[in-house]
């Protein structure tokens, strides 16, 4: 992990994860994950559904606390932050969740204005200018009075993106940002993510299971399987990797060490055998 990104002007790790263990009941979801993410880079966590990718995002954002290990962001240990400190820390975090998670009872304008109104005392005229500038930046100027149910999936995701960047965060977290979108909307979101990261010098973490969408987008990938890092590297290198677990996931093979089917003991056969 000497150099994860070509565009970063600093190799300072902004996120440091050490020996991270997370358990849900008796089940171990993450089992000793350690990694560094450098300032300005765009990193993807990939893996089959249900391996704990979103759990990593929730641990980084402080929504969950690990059983063991530490997560340091900009020198702050997320797991030992008080509620007040966590509140302050999250103001520096932009998050784009699956499906956008727009507030269904508010207009597009009010959705984007919500974090601004909550965390600043800007006069209404400035709030309006700020919201409209972000809405224009994602190519949706003029839809500010629409309700979320009046938007297409791609538009809703772009509005959610505008809301995530409205307070100019230094770290962006994306949870399956392109799930369920058509190819044009996928390209639009991908362009927005890359341009925003490079223009504003952000550090971005993308949670996804879609290999093709990530190859052109991110600088570095981690493949998570059975709670551990099964493989890591630049996306192109991972596609050509001969390591069995990486090859199985990157090339969508049924055969391989990544377990994806559960068979009760004594069951004679399955269609995938």
């Amino acid at each position, binding site marked *: 992990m000497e150099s994860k990104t070509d565009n970063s002007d600093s190799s300072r790790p902004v996120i440091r994860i050490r020996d991270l263990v997370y358990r849900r009941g008796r089940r171990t979801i993450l089992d000793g994950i350690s990694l560094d993410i450098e300032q300005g880079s765009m990193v993807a966590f990939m893996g089959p559904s249900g391996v704990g990718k979103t759990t990593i995002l929730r641990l980084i954002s402080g*929504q969950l606390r690990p059983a063991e290990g530490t997560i340091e962001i900009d020198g702050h240990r997320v797991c030992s932050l008080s509620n007040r400190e966590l509140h302050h820390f*999250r103001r520096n975090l932009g998050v784009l*969740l699956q499906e956008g998670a727009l507030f*269904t009872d508010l207009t597009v304008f009010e959705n984007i204005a919500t974090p601004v109104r*909550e965390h600043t005392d800007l006069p209404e005229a400035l709030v309006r200018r700020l919201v409209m500038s972000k809405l224009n930046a994602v190519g949706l100027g003029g839809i500010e009075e629409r309700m979320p149910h009046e938007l297409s999936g791609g538009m809703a995701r772009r509005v959610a993106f505008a809301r995530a960047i409205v307070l100019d965060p230094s770290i962006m977290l994306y949870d399956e940002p392109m799930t369920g979108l058509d190819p044009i909307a996928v390209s639009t979101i991908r362009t927005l993510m890359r341009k925003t990261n490079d223009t504003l010098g952000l550090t971005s973490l993308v949670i996804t299971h879609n290999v093709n969408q990530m190859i052109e987008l991110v600088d570095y990938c981690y493949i998570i399987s059975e709670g551990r890092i099964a493989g890591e590297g630049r996306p192109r290198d991972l596609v050509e990797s001969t390591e069995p677990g990486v090859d199985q996931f990157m090339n969508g093979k049924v055969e391989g060490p990544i377990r994806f089917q559960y068979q009760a003991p004594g069951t004679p056969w399955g269609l995938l055998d």
Partner: protein
Amino acid sequence: MTGSHPLLEKIAKPFAEAGECLHFLFQMLGGVRFRGAQAAAVLQQTYLVGARSLVIIMICGFFVGMVLSLQSINALEQFGASNQVSLLVGKTLFRELGPVLTALLFAGRAGTAITAEIGLMRATHQIDALELMAIDPVQRIALPRFAAGVISVPLLTAIFNAMAILGSVILSIGVMNLDSGIFWSKLQTSVYFGEDLIHGMWKSLVFGGITSLVATYFGYYSKPTGAGVGTATTNTVVISSVFILIFDFIMTSFLT
């Protein structure tokens, strides 16, 4: 309770849930800021849960007044006291039926809507989004709806009572041809502002609090699935109805 006897767990569960519900209430009350934005949110929710319940409350109040008068006149006629109907209707309505029926109707109409709305916000990750934006979802989502319920139920009770009296007037004077002078004078002299009307208003304030606390709590902690939201909505109606009747007895015992 891990490792304890399953029966003990079953007995302890409602108490644990009641404790969590009270903790949720204190969390909400701790978030009261008296800020313009919060007041605006309460006002908006008062419109959504209160004003939009007006039609059902008015219709039900009107018919409850009519049926109460009809039954009372039939019963009182046996003693030749049918002109006492306004006394009976007034006392029953202001002290018991008005607050209880309004709260039950409110739980069915607005309580379920609050639970389903918050439950869907949970299922569609809107609550997660608020947390990640460093906005307290309890203050932002639950508090305005709770406050709106506490404000709305007493006001709706007053309207329910007024419509019930109107129904009683139409039936007693218009249909049963009772003397209007006796009807109004009995109502004026026998039904007291402090003992009857305010007594009922205290009850409705508590019932409003119970209903909206139960509705916001079950919505906020509902499982993020269709079945989870459905169960939470059912729980809101069942549990708030049971608690309204329990607290009705407790308050009647202390207030009379």
